């Protein structure tokens, strides 16, 4: 019996090792391509092990950092700003909603919930943001739309509602205002859910490419992921009109390996950040998803 159990465990571990290998493999292919030299990549195609190992793609990025550094700066700025203000503002509205006695609570809940059911859609949103608010080609367009996500507000609300009322009641008796209770008690006690939401907001913004696709034409304001997307589009356009002059232009574009290196550099921070949050977010996700 004991032996059988051990064998089962070994089989399971082997299965998951192979499965995880398959999951990582596609990403590894990208990393490997970025470590190859472009001539051998064009000759032999993508390889699991780069042969010969060549760091020139990363060298190229280091020598010509303006464009990518700029996109990094832009992306980092709006990601962090959205994360800080998003979490703060969502906690501010989630706290009143977690208080069962509050009048009008259901109306506010519905006010938020309705935006999950129904939306204006691409074109009306575009007209409002660009023609009415004139936010296109500004950093604000990355930050403000969607800053308040009902889904995350409800996650926080459920978590806040689970905090024992006795703690808040005693603060109330001591004469603390609701602001003080929110910032002094509720927020410090809700680290798992706040960290989870902060991580999700940050990563969603870090990986945001379609905002720029719609609203940004100024190349100085390109987000990191859009920069990558734009390179593919430009190359496809040139390929479609592959005249002699276009082929000359093609050689000016970043090579395959450089683009792969840029993709790795763009994906990197997200992958490095998230394992540190993992202990919070499995907890935050599961607590928050239980309906309140």
């Amino acid at each position, binding site marked *: 019996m004991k032996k059988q159990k051990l064998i*089962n*465990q070994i089989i*399971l*571990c082997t*299965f998951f090792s192979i*499965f995880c290998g398959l*999951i*990582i493999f*596609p990403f590894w292919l*990208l990393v490997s391509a970025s470590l190859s030299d472009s001539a051998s990549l*064009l000759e032999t*195609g*993508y390889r699991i092990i780069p042969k010969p190992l060549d760091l020139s793609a990363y060298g190229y990025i280091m020598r010509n950092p303006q464009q990518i550094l700029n996109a990094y700066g832009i992306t980092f700025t709006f990601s962090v700003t959205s994360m800080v203000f998003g979490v703060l503002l*969502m906690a*501010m*509205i989630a706290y*009143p909603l977690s*208080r069962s*006695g*509050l*009048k*009008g609570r259901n109306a*506010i809940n519905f*006010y938020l919930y309705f*935006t999950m*059911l129904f*939306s*204006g*859609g*691409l*074109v*009306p949103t575009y007209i*409002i*943001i660009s023609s009415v*608010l004139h936010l296109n080609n500004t950093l604000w367009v990355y930050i*403000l739309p*969607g*800053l*308040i996500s009902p889904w995350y507000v409800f996650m926080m609300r459920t978590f806040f509602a689970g905090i024992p009322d006795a703690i808040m009641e005693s603060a*109330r008796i001591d004469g603390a*205002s*609701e*602001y003080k209770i929110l910032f002094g008690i509720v927020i410090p006690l809700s680290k798992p859910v706040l960290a989870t939401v902060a991580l999700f907001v940050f990563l969603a913004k870090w*990986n*945001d*490419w379609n905002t720029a696709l719609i609203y940004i034409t100024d190349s100085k304001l390109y987000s990191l*992921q859009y920069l990558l*997307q734009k390179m*593919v*589009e430009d190359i*496809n356009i040139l390929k479609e009109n592959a005249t002699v002059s276009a082929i000359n232009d093609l050689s000016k574009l970043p090579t395959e390996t450089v683009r*792969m290196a840029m*993709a790795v550099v763009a*994906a990197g921070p*997200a*992958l490095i950040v998230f*394992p540190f949050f*993992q202990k919070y977010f499995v907890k935050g996700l*599961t607590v928050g*998803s239980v309906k309140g």
Partner: protein
Amino acid sequence: MKKRKRITVRDMQLYSLCIIPMILVFIFNYMPMVGLIIAFKNYKFNLGMFRSQWVGFSNFEFFIKSDVFFQLVRNTLLNNFAFIVFGVMSSVIVAVLLFELTNRNATKIFQTILITPHFLSWVVVAYIVNAILNVNYGYLNQLLGLFGVDAVDWYAKPNAWPPILTLTFIWKNVGMDSVVYYAALMGIDTALFEAAEVDGANKLKRTLHIVIPSLVPLITILTILKIGNIFRADFGLFYTVTQDGASGNLYSTTNVIDTYIFRSFKENASGNSYGLTAAVGLLQSVVGMILVIATNAASKKVDKELGLF
């Protein structure tokens, strides 16, 4: 009397916390809904939202009668249906197997690796898919070459894409989706397992009779909620991963409502088709809303019925 007054002050404090978030939601979610009136207008850029001419339902009529309508609905529904079926199946299997692992450290490492692709942007995923499928350098064609198969230009083969997109979808989401199921399994009362062991149930029986049944309510609810969103396609997946439908070659299987809306928006920068595009969006939103409300009601029914056991 005194007490009631104190509560009002507190209430005011609570309401004041809601003001800024509610204003933001008003501006960025509710104001565009007003803009939906252009779905019923012949929108002209120089006339603007309010002064353009009313045309009733002709934008909707034009769209429903156009050739592309059937294609969009079919592609959106079928692709999403495949994502739901295979996505739920794979994430449940992964969760059950992870649960069977007794070593918690190993579980954690595997889980972390499985979740990783979820945090890659669709653009990076498109790069990765291209590394595998590229006609000249792609890894898949190299593998096929070993078996003597000629290189295939995958970006010109529409029929290959529903499976490719489904695989990509599962690859990106299986880890994250299995977290919820895994958490539900962690909540099973261990006394059940002890009782089963005393009764001489083996591992397989345990899985079939305790583990899987305990997931059924959650699977049902999550599936129903996903069906509610079946008219909404993941724009990133269908637009960048297919390289914009490889400029038209793949539209027959990959053109979905969301990509259609984006393209007709982008191709008419003058704004003359905005009315039509807004009408398509409104149609999608309304049908989506009805489905979500209906499926929500259904899930509540399921939850209560199963909750009786």
